[in-house]
């Protein structure tokens, strides 16, 4: 029809309109092309009409299932905001999960005591997935469909969290505070994922820099858990080393949930590595270090934060002559370090003591605490009409939230990573403490040689 209408708009003149007698010499009575529309106009009109014709059906296809924004999200009632979490409360990573949970709950309980957020109490439902991705999936599905939580909170572990990404994307449910620095949660950018801690890439990147620049070590091997988490770390390390035109001299691995570190250790020892970047959990890592020490292998051991500093320290209590450096994404929750974040009224130490008196403050719990702090901040900012979208927007509006201890939380529409700092600690006297001077370590290393 369109095309036809176009044609009608350009009437083609079969009669030049001049009476035969008055036609000037040479101007005969047939088509006078100057009277017609210029070619390009006709052409353009046609083209446009065709395009419109084409685009009409194409447009119909994209039906948005959930196009209409919700007025009020599920999981939010007048009284309560229901959050869900699936984390390793049991199993070989149970420390990580438990402490994360308790750290967060410390703050949340406090908030609830204070009347909640905008009159709503925050309830956190947590299921144990034992650091098992399938279980995490099942838990998450349950949380979304059955429990109809408002948002997901405090997930632990790379394989588990990464596994539920499809669910999160389909359900369009926010997930805030993951105890993992996996790159997959940061790239590609996902609006519904709110990372708080720095990424493994950042951790390993900084570590490698220190190892190479500060400690002068070039032969660096990587020991990693044979799963997404381990590979992520490995990739980060490789990327970091590449910047120095270096590559890992060796790579050893172990399977998640096992302690079969021997093979990996042998590989790394054979390479003569000066430093070993370790991406795993505390048990296998500890065993690796002990065995290496027994074998007389004395590299600098660097571990990422996820390993779990306290547990690792506990397992390496009696080891001497080992250089163990661990990167942390939060500063040490040293009770002796005066900060309201820690020891203030709403400090981590204070609240932990209150609600979970049997637990010692630790990095992991501290991180959970900070997660909760960010969460509440977001809920606050979202206001009374709380929807998932408003919540995310609220988070993104946090530009510079200072929690103390040089901890600045910053988000934006394109930045869903709250913290970017990496702290380095060294195992000394059965405790991980911040490294103040790398030169010392270097000197020590040189002395050892």
């Amino acid at each position, binding site marked *: 029809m369109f095309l036809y209408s176009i044609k009608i708009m350009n009437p*083609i003149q*079969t009669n030049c309109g001049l009476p035969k007698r008055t036609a000037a*010499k*040479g101007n*005969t009575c*047939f*088509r006078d092309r100057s009277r017609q529309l210029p*070619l390009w106009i006709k*052409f353009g009109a*046609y*083209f446009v009409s*065709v*395009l419109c*014709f*084409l*685009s009409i*059906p*194409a447009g119909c*296809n994209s*039906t948005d*299932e959930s196009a209409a924004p919700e007025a009020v999200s599920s999981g939010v009632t007048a009284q309560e905001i229901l959050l869900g979490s699936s984390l390793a409360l049991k199993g070989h990573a149970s420390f990580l999960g438990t402490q994360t949970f308790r750290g967060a709950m410390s703050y949340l309980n406090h908030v609830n005591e204070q009347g909640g957020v905008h009159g709503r109490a925050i309830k956190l439902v947590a299921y144990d*997935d034992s650091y*098992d*991705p*399938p*279980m*995490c*999936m*099942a*838990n998450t*599905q349950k949380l*979304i*469909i059955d429990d109809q939580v408002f948002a997901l909170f405090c997930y632990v572990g790379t394989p588990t969290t990464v*596994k539920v990404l*499809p*669910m999160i994307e*389909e*359900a369009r449910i926010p997930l805030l505070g993951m105890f993992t620095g996996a790159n997959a949660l940061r790239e590609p950018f996902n609006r519904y994922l709110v990372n708080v801690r720095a990424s493994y890439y950042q951790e390993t990147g900084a570590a490698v820099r220190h190892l190479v620049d500060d400690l002068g070590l070039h032969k660096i091997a990587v020991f990693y858990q044979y799963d997404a988490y381990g590979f992520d770390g490995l990739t980060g390390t490789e990327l970091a080393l590449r910047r120095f035109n270096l590559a890992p001299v060796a790579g050893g691995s172990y399977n998640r949930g096992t302690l079969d570190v021997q093979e990996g250790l042998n590989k790394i020892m054979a390479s003569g590595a000066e430093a070993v970047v370790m991406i795993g959990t505390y048990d296998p890592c500890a065993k690796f270090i002990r065995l290496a020490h027994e074998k007389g292998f004395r590299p600098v051991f660097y571990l990422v934060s996820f390993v779990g500093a306290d547990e690792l320290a506990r397992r390496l209590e009696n080891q001497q002559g080992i250089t163990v450096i661990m990167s942390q994404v939060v500063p040490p929750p040293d009770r002796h370090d005066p900060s309201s974040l820690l020891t203030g009224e709403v400090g981590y130490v204070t609240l932990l003591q209150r609600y979970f008196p049997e637990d010692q403050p630790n990095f992991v719990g501290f991180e959970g605490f900070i997660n909760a702090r960010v969460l509440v901040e977001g809920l606050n900012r979202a206001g009374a009409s709380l929807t998932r979208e408003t919540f995310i927007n609220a988070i993104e509006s946090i530009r510079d939230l200072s929690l103390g201890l040089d901890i600045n939380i910053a988000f934006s529409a394109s930045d869903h990573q709250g913290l970017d700092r990496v702290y380095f600690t060294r195992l000394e006297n059965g405790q991980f403490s911040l490294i103040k001077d790398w030169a010392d370590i270097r000197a020590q290393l040189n002395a050892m040689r």
Partner: protein
Amino acid sequence: MQRDVIRGAAKRFRDISLKNKIFFSIIAVILVISAIIAVLARWILVDNLISELELRGIAIARTIAERSSGFILDKNYPELLSLIFDEAKLKERQHLVSYIFVSDREDQVLSHTLMRPFTESLRLANRVPPDEAKSVRLFRLGEQMAYDIAIPVTQGIYRIGTVHVGLNKDHIDQLVAKLRTTFLGFLSLVVVIIFVITHRLAKYITRPIFKLTQISEELSKGNFDVKLDAEQVSKGGQPQECPAFANPDATCRHLDGNLAAAGAGDGAAETDPVCRDCQFYRRQRGDEVAQLADAFYNMIWGIRLYRRRLRESEKKYRSLFDSGPDPIFVINHQSFDIIDANPRAVEVYGYSREELIGKPFMELAPEHTHEYFQSLQGQGESHGLVTYPKALHYKKGHKPFYVNLHASNTTYKGQPAIVLASTDITEMIEKDAQLIQASKMKSLGEMSAGIAHELNQPLNAIKMGSDFLGMMVEANRGIPPADLQQVVAEMSAQVDRAAEIINTLRSFGRKAELVMERVDINKPIQAVFTLVGRQFELDNIRLELALTPGVGAIMAHDNRLQQVFFNLVTNARDAINEKRERRAGSPAGKILVRTYQEDGQVVAEVQDDGIGICEAVRDKIFEPFFSTKESSIDMGLGLAIIYGIVKDYGGAISLKTREGEGTTFKLSFAGV
């Protein structure tokens, strides 16, 4: 009604420009082809896509079925969930797979990948019948259409559950839409290209045609000075440079080659010149459009040459017509009305041009014209010339005069016509008459001695008789009555004789009337006999007449016929005398004049036994001024005049001769 619409549309189609015709036609074809291709493609594609989809879904479902059997048996639902989620959300599959769910034997959902409460209808929507290996159903899921592919999970032969893979039909639809978009886009592109091409092509074709049309218009208005294009201007020269153009009589092989082949065939075409480097006729070169332009130009040049020739020829003939020394008429082919007349015709015939045009030609030439023109008509297209001598025409005022009429067929203003030229021969006829008269006078001169002699005899007899009577009376002697009677009677008779001779003479000498009359052919012969009979006797030549009485009359003039026979017998006498001179002692000569009828003709013969006519001069004797006698005696006009007079009367003259023995002249006329 419909037919009118169709006809109207068809007419409108015919009227649109060539460029648009080409364009629309091609577009129409392309659209039709495209539509067919699209339909075919869609049909093949969609069907195949769907079956592909099914297969994929089936494959996915089977994979899941196999791998999930353990989990189902172990009731390891997390693993099951992980499995089906992996399968469902594996990179690109997430667009394809709408959902996956696994149900147990009782169709209770064990695990599913939906992120919302499981729809009850879905659960039972597609059940695999017990014996089937699969089941595929299309149904609506929310706002989408999905294919549910159900594969049973078996452990051995037992079914322990069912895997349902929901495939997003939208995926296919999108694919199809993409296909359609691509297709249409491509089509548009093709249309655009075709548009440009046809535009160019049509322009290429129509521009020269447009130009040629323009030029044709110019030509039809008579303006031949058109320039086709810049190239022609530089190549061709001024028209005057062409030799055939400058001189219209020169032939150009290019132009005249055909004409020669068709008609003349006199071999001239082979020798007609062709300029080595003809500036004006072009070889055909290039593609059809260029060839058309070239041929067109050649045609124009040919037309110019031809027109020039025509104009020159027209000028030539127009000037001939206008300045012709003789009257020229153009008359209608059928009605013989005058269509055109030249100035001389106006002058001669005394009518004005307006009076002449439209006048029937018969008015000017009443006698004989009808048969004459009919004979002309019979000649058809040939350019034969028909001559009608000594026709009697009438000027204005009914004044007669004699003309020679020539006529031939022609075309005048596209119609067949007859062109006539009439040459005034009155003067000539008068001269003829004068000549005859002169000859007659000469004859009379010749005769005068004889006539005198003839008249002398009766006079003498009368004189002597009267003297005798006077003498006798003077002497007072008596005349014997018998003698007196004799003398007196004789005197009277001699007077009569003299009178007769004088009458004959007078009639001989008379000038002929214009109009012919019925003449009994015996009469003039007898008159001649009267005049010269006795003289011939004195010459010892016997003039004998054998005239058939009532042999017949002919349309002639009496005294002219006398002239004819006088000349014939005189020639006969001369021939006899010549024979006598050459051969001494010849017997007395004899001239025999006979008249008789033969085949309806009136015939007169003059036979002598003179010297005859030798073969050499036989053909020349009728020539004027030719004579076998000495020139001072004879002007040589006698036989020529006879010939002329005989011909005037529509007769024929022939001769038989034998050298040394005699000659016979035979004249035959149509009797009336």
